[in-house]
């Protein structure tokens, strides 16, 4: 691996890790906003509208950071991975184009109405704009997961002279892992948002501020997590079966299995030693591995030794990232179960220790999403298109100096921009859901231009 290629990998990992944090948050947040606005339209209670505008400001900030870091992504394929772009452009290009055509414009345009249109459009139209943004986030997820799933489990293509040609768009889009990975990511995004909403509510309860609003937020978050986490665990399990079928080497790395065996144990912890091709300090539960991975007591799981060394993914990052992700899933399950119990016992409003638990879980979703993606993407190595094109063959061959420049620039700029962004987010959160803009202004005729005198009066 050349230095320029190695740094390009670091750069891609860096910019995509930063980027995914924002969609992971804003997908769920858009739907949370749609929910809040619908609730307000029904009940017309002021504290709901305050909550809507509070989360709208946070959404705007996060969405802005998602947009600018996303534009970087749409050029990365060409700048650093041009051989991949040339080889797979026939397949990936159209999927990304559909994402722009069906989702990005919808989100961007109606976001403007959502953020700035309150005084200019009717309540229903404003709610419509919120819904369009929320739907846009899901359409976007659909296409980007389709593109990524195709790279994991390519289908519907013909490979001629090193170039992929589409043979069936249906099979390309709905490739074998798509139906598992799409719900897995969407639920992960929803859970990320729910953890943040619940965690922030818990913070307010601990500090004894915005109590009414915080109680509403905590209940909504809790109810949502309680419904979603079990579904997510189920989907994750089905996804695991799919990985076993289509990406056995990735599964072997996830489980750090070296030998192909029947009735394999579940490794709770170990230190995989890739040189010696064995695990150290392992803690195992007999047969549980087979039971989970194959749904059979004595099911066979392939080991890494079945694959030549140059076809194995790096074991340690995949093994640990997966365990952190699952751990966070289980913590969320515990949070939901405990919360429901307290709710049922009518102690949710007084159980201080539980608020601390929820507050600590605020960033859990982000960590889970990152670790899930590390498992998926590092586990796909050494391939960029699984089994067909190696990452090493995808590299552009740009000069080392250029990559050093860009990587340094991205690290410095992201540190500044996202450092400030996070700081402003904290500022908003500390301020909390205070009063929303006045209601009177909204009853003005739709699309009526503001006159200077009018807005001076409102000021």
């Amino acid at each position, binding site marked *: 691996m050349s230095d320029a290629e190695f740094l390009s990998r670091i750069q891609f990992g860096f910019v995509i890790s930063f980027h995914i944090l924002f969609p992971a948050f804003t997908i769920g947040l858009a739907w949370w906003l749609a929910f809040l606005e619908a609730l307000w339209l029904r009940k017309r209670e002021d504290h709901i509208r305050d909550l809507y505008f509070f989360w709208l400001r946070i959404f705007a900030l996060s969405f802005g950071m998602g947009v600018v870091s996303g534009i970087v992504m749409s050029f990365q394929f060409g700048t650093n991975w041009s051989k991949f772009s040339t080889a797979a452009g026939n397949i990936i*290009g159209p999927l990304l184009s559909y994402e722009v055509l069906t989702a990005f414009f919808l989100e961007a345009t109606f976001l403007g109405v959502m953020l700035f249109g309150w005084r200019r459009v009717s309540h229903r139209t404003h709610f419509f704009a919120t819904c369009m943004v929320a739907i846009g986030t899901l359409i976007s997820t659909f296409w980007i997961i389709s593109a990524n799933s195709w790279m994991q489990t390519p289908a519907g293509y013909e490979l001629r002279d090193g170039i992929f040609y589409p043979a069936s768009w249906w099979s390309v889009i709905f490739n074998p892992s798509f139906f598992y990975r799409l719900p897995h990511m969407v639920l992960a995004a929803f859970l990320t948002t729910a953890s943040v909403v619940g965690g922030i509510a818990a913070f307010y309860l601990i500090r004894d501020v915005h109590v009414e609003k915080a109680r509403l937020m905590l209940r909504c978050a809790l109810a949502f997590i309680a419904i979603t986490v079990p579904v997510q665990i189920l989907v994750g399990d089905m996804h695991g079966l799919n990985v076993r079928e289509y990406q056995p080497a990735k599964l072997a790395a996830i489980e750090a299995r070296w030998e192909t065996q029947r009735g394999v144990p579940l490794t709770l912890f170990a230190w995989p030693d890739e040189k010696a091709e064995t695990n150290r300090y392992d803690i195992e539960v007999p047969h549980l591995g087979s039971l989970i991975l194959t749904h059979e007591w004595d099911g066979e799981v392939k080991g890494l030794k079945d694959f030549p060394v140059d076809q194995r993914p790096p074991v340690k990052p995949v093994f640990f990232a997966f365990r952190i992700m699952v751990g966070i899933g289980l913590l969320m399950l515990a949070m939901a179960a405990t919360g429901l119990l307290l709710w049922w016992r009518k102690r949710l409003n007084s159980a201080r220790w539980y608020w601390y638990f929820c507050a600590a879980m605020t960033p859990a979703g982000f960590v889970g999403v990152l670790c899930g993606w590390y498992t998926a993407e590092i586990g796909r190595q050494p391939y960029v298109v699984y089994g067909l094109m190696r990452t090493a063959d995808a590299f552009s061959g740009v000069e080392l100096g250029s990559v050093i420049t860009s990587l340094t620039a991205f690290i410095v700029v992201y540190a500044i921009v996202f450092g400030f962004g996070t700081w402003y987010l904290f500022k908003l959160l500390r301020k909390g859901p205070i009063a929303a803009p006045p209601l009177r202004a909204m009853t003005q005729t739709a*699309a009526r231009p503001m006159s200077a005198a009018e807005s001076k009066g409102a000021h």
Partner: protein
Amino acid sequence: MENVLPVIWFFIIGFGVAMYVLLDGFVLGSGILTPFADDDHQRDTMMNTAAPIWDGNETWLVLGGAGLFAAFPRAYSIVLSTLYLPVLLMLIALIFRGVAFEFRFKADSSRWLWGIAFTVGSMFTAFAQGVILGALVEGMPLKGGKYLDGAFAWFSPFSMLTGIAVVFGYALLGATWIVLKTEGRLQRIAFDLTRPLMLAVIAFMLLVSAWLPFLDDTLRQRWFTWPNFLYLSPVPVLTAINAALLWRAVLRNRELAPFVLALCFFGLGFIGLVAGIWPNIVPPSLTIWEAAAAPSSQGFVLVGALIMIPAVLGYTFYSYRVFRGKVTSDTGYH
């Protein structure tokens, strides 16, 4: 079909890039002109004229990128990997410009920082785009899918000229946009900027046009042989008429006409440059047919583009209608 699809896609991507250049052009231009404002209130107003629509405008750039990836993957690969550094500059500048919209209204003590980020980000975005355009028009001699002359091959007097020209061009669009969207003192400032900017842009256009024939033989033959000259003559003729109309509209203190005419002026300049590129997608030698994606790929996205682009134009029009009229510094955020 195999021969027609690349032609259609050439025009769709051309349309997308033109939409981007015009729409983000006036937003970037407003950013470039923020140092000319008297105070922070006026700067707020300038940003607020674009705050509800900038994101949609910028999406045309993403469409241009993704469309190029889908329809001409080889061109996408070559252009982005060879123009690595100008593309990097553009992306970094776009980051600062984009977050400034949000950050400036959320910051207290660091407010000034995002004012600068907005101005400098807009300026460098414009410059980098001009450099990319210039390098592309000038042509990128390729060898085995790579640029011949290394990481700085795009650096030339011509690409520097187009870089600066685009900064002034966007600034002109921005000035006419500010004229349209504001009133009072700020509008006056914008009016006063329009005239010198117009002269500068006309000068840059003449300079670039005069330079083009010397860049490369194909360009000379494209423009200065019979009957090509006849077919292409409407472009310079219309540009000249447009310049005269724009000048008159500004002198008469019209509000809408300068903006519309500046857009047309810019559009004609864009057509003039693209006419020189055809039928290449990466001059001097990679044609649209050589760079084309598989017909089934181009066809598949074409269906979506034909359905979705009119829809996008429809709701873009709607959002501009919602936010029509003058903006004051109080018509601000949320």
